[in-house]
């Protein structure tokens, strides 16, 4: 009952927003044309990379950009609690000219807050990863960098434990963890539980287990996604078994993310489940960058590994911005010329971008590894997964249920693995019935 009325309202708003957008664009155009179409003005870019703001990297980009567009001045605003703060600020009109789209914005809300950057077809000619932030045939954001999903590991420790071949199934992976636990002093698998977000990295593998690029389309049709053999079951079951087997850190509640980077490099930690963005950071923290390896999720379909690829934060233009063209110039320049994606060791958002050196391990697998991108939701069904997930209060991309899973698996509650997954299935099915009705 709700989703219907909500969708209709959203459609009305889309129409309204596009009308406003058009008139705004027109007036902006007429204003600019007096200056022979020269782009000028101040733009504010909201950034979640406070580290790059502090070390001056972003100032370098600013200087380069302003050299090309002398009349535009770029100003950065670094925000530490990016997700929470920007979402709240979006209730006003003042949320910068260019910003990364917060993860909790549902697709149907995109037209209310962001300027369309073009139809998805147009964008797809130039960019990858545009499905994520598109709605109703329009793209609203372009990823600054793309990630491939896998697990970072210390090659020395794994070799010391006698594991030389990449595990091809969860069972082999658990055997490898066991070998590491018995023959080395390293923590076989570090969860980084206390930092919250690292446990959400497991979720990124959904779709790769069954090599299904339509996984997110079929998820809202499924009443029991945590049943044996299905993606979420395989992923969470691997985590459960690793925890239950005692292959994780002694006390997950007091882990330290910053310290974990160095510990992986020095061989105190053997493995962590993190996206490819982390490879560069791990190599920086290691004594010898060559010790850091990257492996796909231990699961094969027809003899090949699959790694999900997708965009990181997407840059978008504030629909209330007075400098939309200048903002667009920044986004285009940032993606095509800044070299940000390469410097981060990530996948370029451009279709013709090269594979980064950090993914050499994946490249070496050749045909044994297939990159898999999820297809966008069908029109009108963009928000289903989020709606069901929120209604069930499970939080696929939030830390809550996976932290509870880790606690249950290490015996802090009386729940068994089956009970835990049954509970998830029940909640999902109930929420689904609610949302679909």
């Amino acid at each position: 009952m709700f989703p219907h009325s909500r969708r209709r309202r959203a459609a009305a708003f889309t129409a309204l927003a596009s009308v406003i957008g058009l008139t705004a664009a027109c007036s902006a155009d007429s204003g600019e044309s007096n200056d022979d179409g020269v782009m000028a003005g101040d733009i504010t870019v909201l950034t979640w990379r406070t580290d790059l703001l502090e070390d001056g990297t972003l100032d370098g980009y600013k200087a380069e950009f302003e050299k090309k567009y002398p009349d535009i001045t770029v100003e950065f605003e670094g925000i530490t609690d990016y997700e929470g703060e920007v979402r709240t600020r979006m209730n006003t009109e003042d949320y910068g000219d260019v910003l990364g789209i917060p993860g909790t914005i549902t697709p149907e809300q995109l037209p209310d807050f962001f300027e369309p950057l073009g139809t998805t077809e147009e964008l797809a000619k130039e960019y990858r990863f545009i499905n994520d932030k598109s709605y109703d045939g329009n793209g609203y954001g372009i990823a600054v960098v793309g990630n491939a999903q896998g697990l970072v590991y210390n090659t020395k420790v794994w070799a010391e434990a006698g594991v030389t071949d990449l595990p091809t199934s969860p069972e082999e992976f658990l055997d490898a963890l066991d070998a590491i636990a018995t023959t080395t002093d390293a923590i076989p698998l570090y969860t980084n539980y206390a930092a919250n977000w690292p446990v959400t990295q497991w979720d990124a593998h959904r779709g790769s287990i069954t090599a299904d690029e339509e996984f997110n389309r079929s998820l809202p049709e499924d009443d029991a996604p945590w049943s044996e053999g299905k993606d979420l079951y395989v992923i969470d079951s691997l985590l459960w078994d690793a925890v239950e087997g005692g292959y994780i850190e002694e006390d997950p509640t007091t882990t330290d993310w910053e310290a974990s980077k160095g510990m992986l490099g020095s061989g105190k930690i053997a493995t962590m489940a993190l996206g490819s963005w982390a490879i560069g950071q791990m190599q920086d923290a290691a004594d010898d960058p060559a010790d850091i390896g990257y492996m796909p999720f231990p699961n094969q379909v027809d003899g090949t590994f699959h790694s999900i690829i997708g965009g990181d934060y997407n840059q978008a233009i504030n629909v209330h911005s007075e400098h939309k063209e200048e903002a667009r110039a920044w986004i285009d320049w940032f993606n095509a010329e800044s070299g940000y994606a390469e410097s981060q060791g990530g996948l370029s958002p451009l279709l013709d971008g090269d594979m980064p050196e950090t993914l050499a391990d994946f490249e070496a697998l050749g045909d044994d590894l297939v990159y898999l991108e999820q297809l966008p939701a069908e029109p009108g069904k963009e928000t289903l997964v989020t709606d069901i997930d929120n209604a069930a209060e499970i939080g696929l991309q939030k830390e809550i249920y996976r932290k509870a899973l880790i606690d249950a698996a290490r015996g802090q509650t009386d729940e068994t693995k089956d009970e835990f997954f049954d509970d998830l299935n029940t909640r999902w099915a109930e929420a689904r019935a609610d949302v679909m009705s």
Partner: protein
Amino acid sequence: MTSTRELAQPPARPLLKKKSALLTSRRRRTGWGWRGTPYVFLALPVLLLVLFTYVPVANMFWYSLTDWDGLDKTKTFVGIDNYVSVFTRPELFRVFFVSLYYFAASFIQMALALYFATILSFSTRFRNLFKGILFFPYLVNGVAIGFIFLYFFRPDGTLDALLDIVGLGDLSRPWLGDRDVVNFSLASTSIWRYMGLNFVLFLGAIQSIPNQLYEAAELDGANRWQQFRFIIAPGIKPIIGLSFILAISGSLAVFEIPFIMTGGSNGSETFVIQTVNSAFKFSKVGLASAMAVVLLAIVLVITWIQRKLVPEEKVNLT
């Protein structure tokens, strides 16, 4: 002119009994300003209060009647639906069990505060230094405290090292990782943090007791314990009552310490953490507002009951 002023002022005191006559004469002299002045001084703080407290609270009531997700441009009125779901989901209230740990801790906290306040109310050497030391934790930023104690409680951290030194190393356990002790660890952090505030409240109250009472008691041969029992304790009864109310509402609304240290995981979730999660993790601002309103109501009801059971008495020490 001068003569009238001289006449009006010096005799003012002896003439206090004729209050009304005096007031009218003053009123006439300064016009409406005399009556209006206090309101001018009140206007700014009240305006700020309205702006930053009452308007947001009113908004919260309104949100609690909608299905707002915190961002949507439209807020659909759903009546009392959110309240119905708050009261039909027992798991939302199960977390109040965690509050019991903090409630019990608040008694230890008050006892300690009272103990220190009593000791330092007698003339003790370096008493100002000790006052500072005891109050200091309350001044430290809550986030910093969270991190300090995260290191304190981690395996082989400060606490384990301390236990090793005194030969109790066997007691070591994952202080935050073990569900049986996590709430004790967090509640004792809370004691450490808030004891200073109680201490200062008690000390202030104790020092307002006239000195002659102690002297008289000493002449009558009362020892320190008797002085505490019959002078100090009854003398600061209202403050103890206030601290008790603060302890109840505080333990129902625990947030900062568990949120920073465990994020509410491993059985340390409190009602406020749950509210924050509903609002910002699951985009249910409507439901979260309803939960906040319910918490407010619970605190008000408990305070009212407490005031009924233990009515405020006028303290008369003489």
